[in-house]
């Protein structure tokens, strides 16, 4: 397991020693901050519902941009060969890179904690949904990171990895709103597959095992798919 730790540390260094991490975080904060606060003063309500409503859609684009390089870059430069012929299992590599993506997502969210703090100074803020929202955001981030990581194993081209990852994440995020396209019989099943409903449940402050299991299953399927893809390259 300490190999997972070394891979995680190396990937985090790659993120934070280059300017890309700070650019992504800055752009993310500017865009979400603007989208959130431009409506905030119109409604005049002391909550973060608007911020969390947008989160599945902003994550659907930001997270694949963060994860696109994880494998595509290594496959492109060939360094994956040097890595895999060291005594490490593909599982440890996938897990290390996945955790690095999750940590990055957490780093992306961390500065937004300033929002609830500022809002709580302006009015009576209910902290329950805020905490739920952040827990949900981490679960959602983990699920999307796994999807993006899976997309990154498919190709040597980071742009393709980003587009595929963003498409799948966006599809999961909007699925709830597209239910009217599906026949009546399928609505229940397809409705369960959408990420937004599960996220909004958690963001209300209700942490239900069904929602948690949903996010963990998406993450597991993504990582397992990545494992299968890497194995098929052998």
């Amino acid at each position, binding site marked *: 397991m*300490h190999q997972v730790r070394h891979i995680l540390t190396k990937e985090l260094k790659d993120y934070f020693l280059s300017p890309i991490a700070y650019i992504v975080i800055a752009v993310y904060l500017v865009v979400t901050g603007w989208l959130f606060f431009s409506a905030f003063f119109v409604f005049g309500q002391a909550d973060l519902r608007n911020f969390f409503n947008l989160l599945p859609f902003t994550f659907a684009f930001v997270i694949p941009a963060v994860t696109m390089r994880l494998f595509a870059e290594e496959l492109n430069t060939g360094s994956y060969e*040097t890595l895999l012929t060291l005594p490490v299992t593909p599982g440890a590599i996938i897990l290390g890179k996945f955790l690095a993506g999750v940590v990055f997502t957490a780093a992306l969210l961390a500065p937004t904690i300033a929002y609830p703090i500022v809002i709580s100074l302006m009015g009576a803020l209910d902290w329950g949904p805020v905490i739920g929202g952040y827990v949900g955001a981490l679960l959602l981030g983990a699920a999307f990171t796994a999807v993006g990581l899976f997309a990154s194993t498919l190709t040597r081209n980071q742009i393709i990895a980003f587009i595929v990852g963003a498409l799948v994440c966006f599809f999961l995020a909007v699925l709830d709103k597209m239910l009217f396209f599906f026949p009546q019989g399928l609505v229940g099943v397809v409705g369960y597959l959408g990420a937004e409903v599960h996220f909004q449940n958690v963001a209300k402050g209700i942490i239900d095992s069904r929602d948690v299991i949903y996010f963990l299953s998406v993450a597991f399927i993504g990582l397992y798919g990545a494992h299968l893809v890497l194995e098929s390259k052998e």
Partner: protein
Amino acid sequence: MIAVENLTKYYDGFCAVDGIGFTMAGGEILGLLGPNGAGKTTTLRMLTGYLRPTSGTIRVKDLDMEADPVAIKRLMGYLPESAPLYPGMLVYDYLSYVANLRGLRGAAREGRIRELVALCSLWDIMAKPIGDLSKGLKQRVGLAHAMMSDPEILILDEPTSGLDPNQIVEIRDIIRRIGREKTIILSTHILSEAEATCDRIVIINKGRIVADDRTENLKRTAGQEHHIHLRLCHAAPDAVRERLAALEGVLRVEIAAPEGDGSLPLKLVCRGDRDRREDIYREIRATDWILTELYQRSRDLETVFRELTKES
């Protein structure tokens, strides 16, 4: 040390490696030789556990590649062709990352890095990003990477390709220095390199082994035959064959089709123990054939290689 049996690899129906098998004792330097696209890299990638063979077995010591890939990888150091390392990392960071993944800790890690820096002369570049290095320097970092855990087996894929002559000599020196106690497999398409560094040469072509012998044996068999090329006019092929094949020391007569001007090019394969040109000349003088050309080519490793691997 290493036993490979019937190793085969198909890529989408294309057979890259076709039933390769060999065994290796410890402390040997084996050169895997072949033209480009012969299956050298694929073979090495299977030996290092990067690719899974379509069929066949690889055993290292008592370990089976299918069952214990990680245990085998622990015994091996591998440098892929053109050393694909992380271009953004500093040399020191990279080496300590590899050391960490190899399970070296604290003082042992720093000590080992220092040894490798001395062995591969990396002092001046420790704080440079790998992407900024020249090809030769990068190759040296790659060698340090491969030798990190002081592995018993070292596998190098074209370690000198793309280097200038000075760098080639440097890399060969390092290989020879470490080859005294290690088992090394290196692939190359440069004959003189295999001749200079390897104890044993395996030549592969189109995924099959076409020769496998100790370097000095290969050189000796190569020298055992002389090729004498002749060109005759006014000669009937059958009569030529009968007469020259009867000569003592002539192993084979190869006659090509007569050319437009009526001359007949042919090749005699003779035993290499002494010069046969005089005998041949006397024999021809006794006939009414006109001799227009006679020259001898002694067979060296290069001719053996060309004969074994030429397209046909």
